[in-house]
């Protein structure tokens, strides 16, 4: 056996350090770069949000003025309203779609693998591509409405894309189409891991299929449901590409979302301080979702250890 354990007699600590330098560098450089960029970038953006920076970053202190300017702007208010509507509609509907699909696929049907691939393929495609395609389908002069008109039903109207009040729903549609498969995949995994004894016991008790799902199977899915909700909300809060490709925030600013406001302030209006403030507000919205989730996960884990 070799005797090369780290403490070699007669060799100094300095020599040891030099010998192991490549190892230390390989371990620390990538991790430090990653950690440092996360912390430094966040702190820097937060700092900029308190400065009067416009075209270039400058020092100075304006307190919460950037925040009040952003919060008072019509752009941001519309973005928040939209986020609330889009976030809740998208999360609820994609949850429902995903759950229904998972339950249907769990009925020992033929071609399950093929069907699963069909429901998941949109996730492999960029939001720019899907947004562009949906903008064609939902364009009243090009897509579904035009097709129905050409078929002879000329009073048919489906023009949400150019309707200020309904345009946000086109983003809901595209987002559901794109990411319900994700909810389905997680729910399906959950359904497959339901305790078989539990099901058998319920069958012996004479539970029918609907009762079985409502009383026995679905209650075991709620931890997965919470995970899906949180991930979908995280997606909703940072949605950018999809809107950019589908409506570009329009008509007017009817489909504005926080991420678009940040981009607009930073790179189109060159109001860096306000842009940074909007980004920090986005982070706060995200934290309002993630912190309770982290606390919940922590409690769950503690209970699992004590059980």
């Amino acid at each position, binding site marked *: 056996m070799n005797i090369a354990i780290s403490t070699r007699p007669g060799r100094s600590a300095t020599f040891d350090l030099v010998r192991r330098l490549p190892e230390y560098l390989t371990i620390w450089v990538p991790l430090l770069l990653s950690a440092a960029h996360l912390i430094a*970038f966040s702190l820097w953006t937060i700092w900029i949000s308190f400065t009067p920076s416009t075209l270039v970053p400058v020092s100075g202190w304006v307190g919460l003025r950037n925040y009040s300017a952003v919060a008072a702007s019509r752009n941001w208010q519309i973005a928040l309203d939209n986020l609330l509507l889009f976030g809740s509609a998208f999360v609820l509907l994609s949850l429902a779609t995903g759950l229904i699909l998972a339950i249907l696929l769990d009925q020992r049907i033929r071609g399950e693998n093929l069907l699963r691939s069909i429901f998941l393929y949109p996730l492999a495609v960029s*939001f*720019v591509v899907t947004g*562009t395609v949906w903008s064609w389908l939902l364009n009243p002069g090009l897509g579904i409405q035009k097709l129905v008109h050409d078929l002879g039903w000329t009073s048919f109207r489906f023009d949400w894309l150019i309707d200020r009040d309904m345009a946000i729903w086109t983003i809901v549609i595209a987002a559901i189409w794109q990411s319900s498969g994700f909810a389905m995949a997680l729910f399906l995994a959950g359904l497959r891991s339901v305790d078989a004894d539990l099901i058998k016991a319920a069958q012996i008790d004479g539970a029918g299929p609907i009762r079985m799902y409502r009383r026995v199977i679905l209650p075991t899915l709620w931890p997965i449901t919470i995970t899906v909700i949180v991930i979908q909300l995280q997606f909703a809060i940072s949605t950018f590409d999809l809107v950019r490709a589908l409506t570009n925030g329009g008509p007017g600013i009817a489909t504005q979302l926080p991420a678009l406001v940040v981009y607009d302030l930073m790179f189109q209006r060159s109001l860096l301080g306000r842009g940074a403030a909007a980004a920090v507000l986005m982070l706060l919205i995200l934290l309002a979702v993630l912190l309770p989730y982290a606390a919940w996960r922590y409690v769950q884990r503690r209970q699992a250890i004590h059980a």
Partner: protein
Amino acid sequence: MRDRTFAPSRLLIYLIVSLIAAAWLAPLAVVVLNSLRTNEEIAQASMIGWPKQWAWSNYAAAWSGFCVAETCAGIRPYMLNSALVTIPATIFSTLLGAIAGYAVSLWRFRGDSWIYGIVTLGLFLPQQMRLLPWTIVLRDTGLMNTLTGLVVIHTIQGLSFTTLFCRNYYTAIPQELIRAARIDGAGFFRIFWRIILPLSPPILVVTVIWQFTHIWNEFLYGVTFTTGQQQPVTAALIALSAAVADIPQHGVQSAAVMIAALPTLLIYLIGGKYFVRGLTAGAVK
């Protein structure tokens, strides 16, 4: 197996599932068909229809003919840009993530769980919080509007995901294996090379597919940090639809969209199992 007989209720299940599947495939079918119809045909009818004559020339035009902004070289240069960003960034971030994941899970060192905890915060921090700092960093290093700049960004940011994936996978390897190898005199690199890497192919495939798909599909950094000829294909597609808004060329545009989507679609078709594994692994953070 039960239920092999065709009860009406089962027929209903098949009917519903097939209808939803058809709805899910419809957008893809529409683009594929449109990419084979002439611009004039689409302009006369709608975006939804069967090609009267097969316009294969759309693909040639989309690839190397039509104009994005002022340049008329088709989508090819932007596809090349995307490849030149995605491939190196995927390789670097996966390799570094594997080493980092091994270091924090098996090699262990003082402060490992702290630094790992910070790195995984990157999964949650919105891109918008990093946009301005990256702008400054790229400007000061002269990497603004270069593909190298995007490679650096995606490599460093990708580390959060790749380290998490690999670390979670490596924790299943018994610590005793590493301890025994260390007593035998094997160092950090030799253990990685001889023990860890041979056990890694499944997680490396998941990580590579995940990173490739994400970097290829990324848009915000591409559009913020590059312009004109340096843009990746996602940013070029947006520029294209803005450029042709007056005289739509939906046949050629559809072909361009298909070409842009093809790399990640192909990877999904080939490695779907691993793609889904990455998706669900990322979910149970």
